[in-house]
């Protein structure tokens, strides 16, 4: 039955009886973790798709009311687990905005480098699994090899491959060492070749292009009205990038372009992600060259940041400073206001709306999840496409169930 017939205001309800319901269940390889779609099919064509989510809802926002700002970063890490540090950077950006803390230049540059590394990390996974779902296992392996290098960089800085818990209010957990800088420079040298290998397998590949071009179109009005941000919106022609429009961290001093496309289909989203990886590499190269020296923690007037661990263990002032910052009743008070802080995470605009009642923990910390808004647009994107396009469209909007459900 053609789509127009179904949509028309005097559509005969009996004609819907020819539709076949298929459950694209919570456990399925193409759903990228646990989400469920109930599809109404007419033969191979998808007429309607109703998503059912919540299979990974863990009560993150309830935990925010119990843990303080420095402890909650471990939980926030576990939201978009494909690019964990991006969440931490976004969370502490919001907290530091609320508390009115200005970071040191070195901290800003290191956080910028990590934000861009995480962007490459996320886009490699998104594009790799998108291609894997359409059948290309080799490109997936190439993408994952590069991700291993980024895992090593995270491990050198913080000790863990991912779920690092690296940022703190006013600074970072540890400062970075010279061999970390050498590792990042090495990554910048080897990444372009790996990118060319990966792109060469996929971008002009006839099967891939035919399966993704014209599929899952999101119009510009739907993108803006539906709250889409990040690569999904930029691929539909919305020229917005928080790094350029509302600059934060060190993006003011760095030179980069904003990647947009006009198709709005899966191939456009794929292209935007590929181009963004190259832009991120440019940003990392500039930032690592300009990395300023100096302290990583804000010392300022109040004792806002945590002291260096060597000071904590060796001097009484360091110990008292640490005690004052960690013990529950003695931390710095926060203003009794609400604040919204957003950053450009690889998936879109990841923002935190924090309401504070004076304590060092949030009274309410709401995450603005880009995946939720993108997935709510899914039913608009999939109408009229074939069943096999469901995997392509799901892969291209990069839904991460942990961020979707929280």
């Amino acid at each position, binding site marked *: 039955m053609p789509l127009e017939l179904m949509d028309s205001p005097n559509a005969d309800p009996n004609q819907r009886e020819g539709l076949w319901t298929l459950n694209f269940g*919570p456990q*399925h390889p193409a759903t990228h973790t646990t989400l469920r779609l109930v599809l109404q099919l007419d033969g191979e064509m998808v007429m309607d798709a109703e998503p059912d989510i919540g299979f990974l809802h863990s009560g993150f926002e309830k935990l925010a009311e119990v843990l303080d700002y420095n402890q909650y970063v471990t939980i926030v890490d576990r939201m978009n687990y494909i690019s964990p540090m991006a969440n931490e950077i976004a969370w502490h950006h919001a907290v530091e905005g609320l508390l009115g803390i200005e970071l040191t230049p070195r901290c800003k540059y290191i956080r910028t480098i990590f934000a861009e590394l995480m962007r490459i990390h996320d886009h490699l996974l998104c594009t790799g699994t998108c291609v894997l779902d359409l059948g290309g296992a080799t490109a997936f392996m190439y993408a*994952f090899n590069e991700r291993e290098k980024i895992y090593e960089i995270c491990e050198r800085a913080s000790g863990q491959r991912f779920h690092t818990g690296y940022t703190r209010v006013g600074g970072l957990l540890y400062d970075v060492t010279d061999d970390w800088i050498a590792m990042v420079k090495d990554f910048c040298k080897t990444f372009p070749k790996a990118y060319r290998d990966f792109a060469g397998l996929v971008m002009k590949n006839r099967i891939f292009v035919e399966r993704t071009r014209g599929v899952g179109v999101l119009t510009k009005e739907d993108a803006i009205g539906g709250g889409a941000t990040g690569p999904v919106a930029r691929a539909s022609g919305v020229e917005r990038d928080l790094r350029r429009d509302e600059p934060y961290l060190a993006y003011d001093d760095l030179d980069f372009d904003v990647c947009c496309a006009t198709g709005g289909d899966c191939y456009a989203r794929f292209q935007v992600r590929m181009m963004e990886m190259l832009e991120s590499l440019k940003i990392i190269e500039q930032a690592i060259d300009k990395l300023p020296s100096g302290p990583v923690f804000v010392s300022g007037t109040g004792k806002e940041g945590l002291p260096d661990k060597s000071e904590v263990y060796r001097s009484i002032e360091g110990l008292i400073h640490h005690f004052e910052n960690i013990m529950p009743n003695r931390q710095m008070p926060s203003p009794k206001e609400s604040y919204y802080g957003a950053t450009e995470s690889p998936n879109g605009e990841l923002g935190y709306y924090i309401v504070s009642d004076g304590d060092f923990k949030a009274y309410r910390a709401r995450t603005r999840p880009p995946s939720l808004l993108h997935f709510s647009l899914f039913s608009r994107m999939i109408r009229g496409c074939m069943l096999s396009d469901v995997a392509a469209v799901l892969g291209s909007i990069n839904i991460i169930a942990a961020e979707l459900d929280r």
Partner: protein
Amino acid sequence: MSTAASRHDLSRFGSEVMRFTPRQCDLMIVAGRVVMKMIPVLQRIWMQMPEPKWCISMGACACSGGVFDTYAVVQGIDRFIPVDVYVPGCPPRPEQLIRAIMDLQDKIKKTGTYNAREFQLRILPDGPKRFDEDELIRIRERNGLKLEEHKYDPIH
């Protein structure tokens, strides 16, 4: 995912085939936290797998709830599903998962799988006994230890 990818290659240990339909599987790896909406689905998948079958609980959240002691997360899937090997860590390294699969292979060598009748003797649930926090508080009070007032009530 990294365990199956190029650097830590799981297919070296015989686990090349990752099929997503439970009807053709021997091993179920539960990775990550399981919430109460997902537990009936998980149980159904377990029942759909044919014997002999084993389960690995991967990650701190699947083993015990992890950091998420909230209203929605099941505090350990071994309360509802029989588990053979536990992999700790948040997240567990790929090497830990490979080690877990090797341990499971050793366990299978020892306990065998020919007819699975040995499983029928194990009718009690394997997981931890339901831990009653009220009981702990009563024991402490009996011993004279006073606990501080918590800001939120842990007994619920």
